[in-house]
């Protein structure tokens, strides 16, 4: 499968993402310069962390106007899997591809440390191989990760299963101590209504090898690989099987994926 990693001026986790996808997971990867207006050839897109365009104005704001973002938007609208990590999440928020906004961390401090995350939704291409309630460990590194959404939007996110990750303790409990930045309801990651666009503040690419202390981050990339290799075409929305039905595999999965293509969801 072919990943596209979008590189903005000021991205600084792009190489880490490329390394994990190419060297650890053995996938094809294109680095896509943000000044180009195409993402052609990619089966999945990653918007990496960093400080795109210096985070001037607001984190992710200037990046949302880069030529490549029209192509990213079109790819997302076709149902292609898009993952925004940290600054990439902020870019997706500012682009309107994900709901909500980021405020400065409540503490005003840049937080750089490992956190635990509880998986809240497995309906996205990046979490469908995970279990609901599963606890992952990976690092955060941000100054503006205090997720905010107006009350009506927050309620819709909850009702529609668009909250994908919450900060938790090691046992999966959501507490004020486990919230590193003041995020609304401990939200660490969300998805769009269709589920194919996901953003999270923690860094899965920094937790994908034993030597880095955790391989939990790899599960997100492996999730999208599992989805595509079992026959779902790139750009297909995730199968609606969700967590309540047995996860399909083999020929059966292919049937479901084919049905999904026709919009029977």
């Amino acid at each position, binding site marked *: 499968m072919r990943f596209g990693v979008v590189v903005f001026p000021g991205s600084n986790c792009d190489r880490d993402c490329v390394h994990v996808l190419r060297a650890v997971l053995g996938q094809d990867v294109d680095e896509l310069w943000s000044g180009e207006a195409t993402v052609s050839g990619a089966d999945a897109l990653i918007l990496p962390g960093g400080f795109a365009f210096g985070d001037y104005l607001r984190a992710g704001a200037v990046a949302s106007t880069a030529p490549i973002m029209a192509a990213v938007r079109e790819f997302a609208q076709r149902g292609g899997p898009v993952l925004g990590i940290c600054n990439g999440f902020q870019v997706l928020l500012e682009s309107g591809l994900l709901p909500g906004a980021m405020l*400065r961390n409540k503490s005003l401090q840049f937080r750089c440390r490992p956190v635990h995350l509880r998986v809240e939704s497995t309906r996205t291409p990046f979490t469908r191989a995970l279990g609901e309630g599963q606890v992952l460990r990976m690092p955060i590194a941000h100054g503006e990760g205090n997720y905010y959404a107006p009350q009506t939007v927050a309620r819709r996110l909850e009702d529609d299963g668009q909250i994908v990750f919450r900060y938790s303790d090691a046992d999966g409990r959501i507490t004020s101590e486990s919230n590193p930045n003041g995020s609304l309801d401990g939200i660490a990651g969300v998805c769009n209504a269709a589920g194919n666009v996901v953003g999270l503040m923690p860094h899965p690419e920094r937790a994908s090898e034993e030597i880095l202390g955790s391989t939990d981050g790899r599960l997100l990339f492996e999730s999208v690989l599992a989805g595509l290799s079992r026959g779902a075409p790139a750009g297909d929305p995730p199968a609606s099987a969700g967590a309540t039905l047995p996860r399909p595999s083999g020929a059966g999965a292919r049937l479901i994926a084919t049905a999904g293509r026709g919009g029977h969801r």
Partner: protein
Amino acid sequence: MTTVRIVITLKPGILDAAGQAVRQGLLSLGYREVGEVKVGRYLEIAVPEDLAPEHIAAMCERFLTNPLIEDWRVGEAP
């Protein structure tokens, strides 16, 4: 050309952590009379003199602010 001055602040009710920290600093220096402090952004943009105000509004709402969390106003000339 003329210069438009735009002031952007967080909406009422949105946590202004920087404003609170600045207020704390002022209190520490003994300025006990200080109430709420808001930290925002200030922009000067050169535009044609006959530019319609709606254009400024569009710039603010589409890009210069995030309307979920920020308010804007055209500021006074210094």
